[in-house]
């Protein structure tokens, strides 16, 4: 697997190329873009950071899980550093001979990435305030499920 983390813009075409093969006719993709709002505040920009070696290892584990569970090839990439509204933060691509496993694997990977990969987001709002985003706080995204431990 290519590195999950990148400081450059996410390259969807290279992810698509990584999973493409003549026998894989169904490709499901998820792109997570930087939104301009969070809990009613206007976001100006944000910075993603990570526990990089663990994030790489966990992303590789998730990809391997998906490829073990469905007849798919997956590719995934998360951008770190300064991002602007509309930039692609994360991309997941799953290719299979048929569309159902492609969709299921793609959804599995993005859900597990959000739940398990150590990446953090610091948001800078239009009103000058700054916050580390906490998806577990009421009103700030969905509550987390438990994280599997070794």
């Amino acid at each position: 697997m290519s590195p999950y983390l990148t400081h450059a813009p996410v390259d969807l075409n290279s992810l698509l190329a990584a999973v493409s093969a003549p026998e894989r006719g169904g490709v499901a993709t998820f792109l997570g873009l930087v939104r301009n709002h969070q809990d009613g505040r206007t976001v100006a920009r944000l910075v993603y950071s990570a526990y990089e070696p663990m994030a790489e290892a966990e992303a590789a584990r998730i990809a391997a899980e998906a490829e073990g569970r469905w007849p798919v090839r997956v590719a995934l990439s998360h951008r770190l550093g300064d991002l602007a509204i509309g930039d692609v933060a994360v991309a997941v691509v799953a290719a299979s001979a048929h569309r159902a496993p492609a969709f299921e694997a793609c959804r599995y990977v993005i859900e597990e990435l959000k739940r398990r990969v150590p990446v953090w987001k610091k948001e800078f709002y239009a009103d000058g305030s700054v916050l580390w985003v906490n998806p577990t706080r009421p009103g700030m995204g969905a509550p987390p499920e438990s994280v599997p431990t070794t």
Partner: protein
Amino acid sequence: MNTSSEASGQHLAVRVLLFATYAELAGRALVELTLPSPATVQDVLRRLRAALPGAEWLPDQPLAAVNRSHARLSTPVRDGDEIAFLPPLAGG
């Protein structure tokens, strides 16, 4: 601190990594700690709070990792382990 185990020399040294809010609260991203053996992630957290002003702000049950895998507070730690305390994840 367990004086008897210290006396017997049964200690372990770990690297503790802090990220995002936790690094800002604690004022540091890396702490080297020595603990009596045996020890768990919970013991590392307890020692961290005692050793580092600002670490008191960490929650009682943070997400934790040992050697780059998710771990429980009850997970045993060994000499040389890399322990990380992870604020709520916010990738993607």
